[in-house]
């Protein structure tokens, strides 16, 4: 069987421009639809990406190692040894880029005026630096100098609530492994500002060694945070880490540690596709309409072609080609338009007007749209697949015309 693709393509192209106004309006509609698909998904993806990043910066890390009881019972009683042997080897090998062993314990900080419950983090500043989990902005004073620093680093919000300030002494109360209250006076060496105000009031940092000493826990920690700098690729290295850790330890990825972020990411993936399909469905009415009318106007012509011996299959193909050309042009225009919109927004969109609402979703004050090639490909796939599917009906009708009746039409 001979398939004169070249001439069919020419025919389809010329037919497309016979009614240029209709084609242009349809092109505009497709371009707008595709633009919306890509821009909206880039904004949504940017938002989720930032939520996940911020969430993981606070968590911190993309995976954590704990005593198996610790997550349900975040008490110092559930401590574990510092990493050693195979686990240490695994932690220091690629693709893992940073890890930090820390003591995370509930504590009460009391000034002479007020007291607040906080989560106290006993850290080794060098390890945390590599992980990027220390507060970014230091307002006053200095960061912790080392794991044995005997000072405390407080958030500005917490310092205000405690009515205290840099250089003052406050009382740190926490529980040791025998459930006795361990307390000690500590000097405030630095005041930090966190991206999210809630974190500022929740976390206080002290030297790991100093805290271990207070609690009588030499070389013991409650949490090891691990990062490989890419939250999407955790599955690649997590199993090896789990195998290297002793069976008494629990090694979990972030989707299990922070279920909200995990489900958020999954919902967003699904939502992008649903949004694209919905936009296309609204668009498809116009597309079918255009094709139905284009076929209707050419009833006689199509009848003549058939009478002259053109096979129905070729007529079907010709209408489909026409639709394909229209969709492809629309996709091209829509994608270029989306790129033109998103490139100037690369440096972020200021959303500080709704900052506190965004904080409920663990967002900062700037939204960075994230253009993913996947989204562009997905929108193209959705538009082409569903578009051709929608064109099948008018194309099939065109190919099933009765030549005699079609020719008799005016």
């Amino acid at each position: 069987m001979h398939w004169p693709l070249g001439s069919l393509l020419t025919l389809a192209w010329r037919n497309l421009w016979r009614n240029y106004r209709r084609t242009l309006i349809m092109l505009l509609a497709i371009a707008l639809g595709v633009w919306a698909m890509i821009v909206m998904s880039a904004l949504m993806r940017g938002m989720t990406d930032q939520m996940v990043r911020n969430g993981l910066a606070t968590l911190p890390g993309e995976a954590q190692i704990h005593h198996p009881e610790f997550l349900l019972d975040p008490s110092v009683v559930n401590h574990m040894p510092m990493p050693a042997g195979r686990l240490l080897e695994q932690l220091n090998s690629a693709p893992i880029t940073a890890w930090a062993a820390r003591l995370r314990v509930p504590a009460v900080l009391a000034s002479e005026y007020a007291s607040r419950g906080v989560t106290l983090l006993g850290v080794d500043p060098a390890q945390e630096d590599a992980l990027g989990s220390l507060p970014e902005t230091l307002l006053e004073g200095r960061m912790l100098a080392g794991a044995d620093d005997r000072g405390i680093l407080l958030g500005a919000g917490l310092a205000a609530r405690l009515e205290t300030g840099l250089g003052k002494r406050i009382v740190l109360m926490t529980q040791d492994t025998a459930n006795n209250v361990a307390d000690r006076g500590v000097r405030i060496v630095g005041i930090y500002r966190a991206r999210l105000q809630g974190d500022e009031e929740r976390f206080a940092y002290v030297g790991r060694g100093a805290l271990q000493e207070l609690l009588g826990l030499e070389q013991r920690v409650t949490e090891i945070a691990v990062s490989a700098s890419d939250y999407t690729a955790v599955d690649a290295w997590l199993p090896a880490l789990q195998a290297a850790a002793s069976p008494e330890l629990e090694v979990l990825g972030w989707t299990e540690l922070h279920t909200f972020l995990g489900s958020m990411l999954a919902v967003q993936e699904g939502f992008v596709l649903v949004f694209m399909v919905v936009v296309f469905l609204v668009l498809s009415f116009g597309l079918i309409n255009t094709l139905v009318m284009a076929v209707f106007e050419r009833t006689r012509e199509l009848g003549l072609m058939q009478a002259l011996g053109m096979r129905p299959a070729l007529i079907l193909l010709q209408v489909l080609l026409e639709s394909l050309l229209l969709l492809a042009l629309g996709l091209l225009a829509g994608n270029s338009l989306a790129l033109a919109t998103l490139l100037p927004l690369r440096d972020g969109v200021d959303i500080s007007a709704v900052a506190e609402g965004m904080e409920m979703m663990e967002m900062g004050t700037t939204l960075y749209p994230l253009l993913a090639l996947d989204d562009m490909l997905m929108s193209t796939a959705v538009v082409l697949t569903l578009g051709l599917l929608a064109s099948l009906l008018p194309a099939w009708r065109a190919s099933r015309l009765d030549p005699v009746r079609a020719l008799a039409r005016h």
Partner: protein
Amino acid sequence: MNITWRLAWRNLWRHWRRTWLTVGAMVFCNMLLIFLISVQLGSYQMMIDNSLGAFTGHLQLQHEGFDEEQRIRQSMPAVAERARQVQELLGAEAVAARGIAYALASSEERSFGIQVTGVEPEREPRVSTLPGLLREGRYLSGADGEIVVGALLARNLRVAPGDEITILGSGRDGSFAAAIATVVGIVDSGIPDLDRALAQVSLPWFQTVFSMGDHGHSVVVRLPNLEQVPLAVTTLQALRAEHPELVVLDWDQLQPGLRQAIRSDMASAWVMYGVLILLVAFSVLNTQLMSVLERTREFGVMLALGVSPGRLARLVGLETALLAALGLGLGVLLGALLALYLQQAGFTFPGMEEMNARFNLPERIYPPVTLASLLWGPLTVFLGALLAAVYPALRLFGLQPVAAMRAT
């Protein structure tokens, strides 16, 4: 029936496939909008009700600066009397006094820093839903030495009803505050932040333990609905004449994140709706432009017979209006059925449970059917469709009868 109406109606059905496809686009878009808007408005309403109902209330009377700094000394004297006064001024039933302090809570095995709230046990259930969300035990009876804690706090402290908790903190005068309380009930609100922090004792005992005298930190008011808040705030300003150190805070000031979260969600939702509506408008534009172009000869004849271009434009406008009205009517009808069904059956999607817990929402949303949720979207689609007819109608004014009659 007027001749223009009849003409318009008949013209509409010359290409019945095209008309139905255009109407179909509108109906589909309308149903979609009704669905999205009712879920959206429904979840905002629930977000506000649940967030405020849980603890914050619609408005609070506090000492100036307490909301920001939460210092124990920023208290108001005779808080219970003040609450009764507010109750009288507003004629509202749901008013309660509270005291708030931070302390270290220790059970036999564990210690955690917590926020202790002193409440009036017989009034608190009227302003807050938490007392009604007991999982175990009972609510406070008013006796000294009783404490109700959140489910996560109970788990962290490893306590059950009957167990004792030691509370250590500092009193209003800076003195050492210590007490032993027996857990009588455990509250499970499903909101992790609340369940982790909640600890309530009776207000008189709270005042004793923290050396507060008759002081407290807030008077909480819950009103039947949000619309009454501004008036109530104005009414309570009268109190400031006598007590200039007091401030009246409404829910937006108490929980600023809430309105902003709604606003940002609303903005992104409207961008999406705008795109859908524009796409439908394009569909209508296409249909009407084609229907005008293919009738060029016919319009030429009508012009030659003395019909004014204005009247022709009105005809095209009327056709569009009929088309759009069909889409509006059918869309609202089908959309209302869908919305009514959702109101009964509820709506959920995989992953929604975790996300909703974040915003104090239940795992299934039952969006209420309101006039706003039914008409907002479809009316905008209707207007968009009418606007789309402007260009095709304007073209008629440039038509030359002779040339038009010869057009192919």
